[in-house]
């Protein structure tokens, strides 16, 4: 039985290479601003962006050898905290094909892996959609 796709105000599609530019920062800033205004948001990651929520990342980035005492959160932890803060208004989806293809099949449990064939249904469930990072 197909899992329901919750209706949202905005769908942010992260299609671009996540660390080539400020894409992830911008997406998280925009998502946070939308959530702060009470909006319902879904994020769909494709390609290398599926690695943002890979379970292999753990909670922290590798230690900065110039500042050993400081701990920097991984993107997986940032996404997990954001989802925990907005349990009924933020949804994070990961393209199953892209994740599997990149060895990132093991994702944090708070996100949902979806077949790319469902992508159009997610677009339909959102009032507006932005494709970020590919053109």
């Amino acid at each position, binding site marked *: 039985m197909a899992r329901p796709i919750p209706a949202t105000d905005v769908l942010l599609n992260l299609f671009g290479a996540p660390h080539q530019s*400020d894409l992830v920062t*911008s997406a998280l*800033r*925009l998502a946070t601003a939308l959530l702060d205004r009470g909006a319902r948001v879904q994020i769909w990651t494709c390609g290398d962006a599926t690695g943002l929520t890979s379970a292999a990342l753990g909670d922290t980035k590798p230690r900065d050898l110039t500042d050993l005492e400081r701990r920097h959160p991984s993107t997986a932890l940032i996404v997990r905290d954001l989802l925990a803060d907005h349990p009924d208004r933020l949804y994070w989806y990961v393209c199953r094909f892209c994740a599997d293809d990149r060895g990132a099949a093991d994702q944090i449990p708070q996100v949902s892996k979806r077949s790319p064939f469902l992508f159009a249904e997610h677009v339909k469930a959102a009032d507006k959609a932005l494709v970020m990072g590919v*053109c």
Partner: protein
Amino acid sequence: MTDHLLIESGGPQTGPACERFVGDAVRLAGDGHRVVLFLVENGVTAALPGAAPGIETFLRDGGEVWVDTFSAAQRALPAADLAADVRMVEMDDVAAKLLEPQVRAVWH
């Protein structure tokens, strides 16, 4: 008449794509649509005087240019160095615009 939010993240240094996207904004504004061109990430460099000639035409035709305060600060671009008629904004302003029902948005 439709409201548009066009978001430019690349800037003039990415080649003709930025120029064409600003050109879309110019044409929409010239046709009488309400258009906001939001510059973010490296796109903020398009707000430097003379960096993207289409910006001046766009402003003259009634378009609004918004510049992301955070992105400009990251690139050490104070508002005083940018074109006179641009508006420095926070992401909250963009979220508010995006959530207006009549607004169509494109991220480039």
